């Protein structure tokens, strides 16, 4: 793996570590007594804090998952060259698009 991909992988991981802990904490708290769309939206809608929290999460996870799946595809599927780069790009952009849409839906949409 290229040094820059390695750095991006490690740095995005470090960004996500506190976000993951926060996310799990919120889940443990929120899941008590069941979930509803209204309950989630009442917490997140119009909140800049949650927008930044999950917005940063989506950016980091798109990068991290794209690099991770690229490595797996290289080692386990034997993908190389353009196919490998294309897979990483599609994974990263796809996750970012879906994630950004979801964050927007629960905050400012």
């Amino acid at each position, binding site marked *: *793996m*290229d*040094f820059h*991909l*390695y*750095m991006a992988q*490690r740095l995005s991981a470090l960004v996500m570590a506190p976000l993951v802990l926060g996310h799990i904490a919120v889940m443990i708290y929120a899941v008590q007594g069941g979930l509803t769309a209204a309950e989630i939206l009442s917490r997140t809608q119009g909140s800049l804090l949650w927008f930044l929290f999950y917005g940063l999460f989506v950016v980091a996870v798109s990068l991290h998952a794209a690099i991770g799946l690229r490595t797996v595809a*290289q*080692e*386990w599927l034997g993908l190389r060259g353009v196919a490998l780069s294309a897979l990483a790009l599609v994974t990263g952009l796809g996750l970012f698009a879906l994630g950004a849409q979801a964050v927007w839906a629960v905050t400012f949409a």
Partner: protein
Amino acid sequence: MGDKLKVTVRRGGPGAQHDQTYAVPAEDNQTVLDVVSWIQQYADPTLSYRFACRVGMCGSCAMTVNGVPRWTCRTHVRKVSERPEIHIAPLRNLPVIKDLVADMDPFFDKWIGAEALHHPSRSREEAIAPIDPQDAARQEADLGIECINCAVCYAACDTVAGNPDYLGPAALQRAWTLLNDAKDGAHDTILDAVSGTGGCHACHSMGSCTQHCPNELDPMRAIAGLKRDTVRRAFRGRR
């Protein structure tokens, strides 16, 4: 007395390998290399294998024994199997030449690729640089210099198996010992070489190298050291 070992050997060359079974007399004290030598001397003189020193110094006799890469001259038969059965194959992750002989060229080419070779820092007219054995860098280098180039780590590594460009544990460990050697004069060259495609950053720290190194070295630790130094250099900027 009269007991036999059932020994299955992977025979043949590239693209045409098959297993062949031999009955070999069991001894009280018997290494895997003894078994292979017995087959070659008493059962089938066409069996090809490699060895030299027989005392764990030359690194030429490594083979895959019951699925595990080992130095065969210092591996007792009783250590690898409770039952009187062993399977012997050439090292993984290297092209086979014939029978138990693996082509070591890719392995050693990667030592060069990792710049795992001495870069002189002084000419013969200058005095030899004094080395303090207590120095922290020297002690770190000392941890890795007893490598005998047997390629057991290289055969054990799944990252090598999945990524043919990966330089592998042995070459990277040697690069790390040179990086910690005051007498080496091209530390930036080494860091550049281990930062490219297939460099130290491809390692996943699964530790099969350290697990199986017959000399009980710790290539995984050395590779982590290379990662740390390349990251440190990136944050500091090049001098």
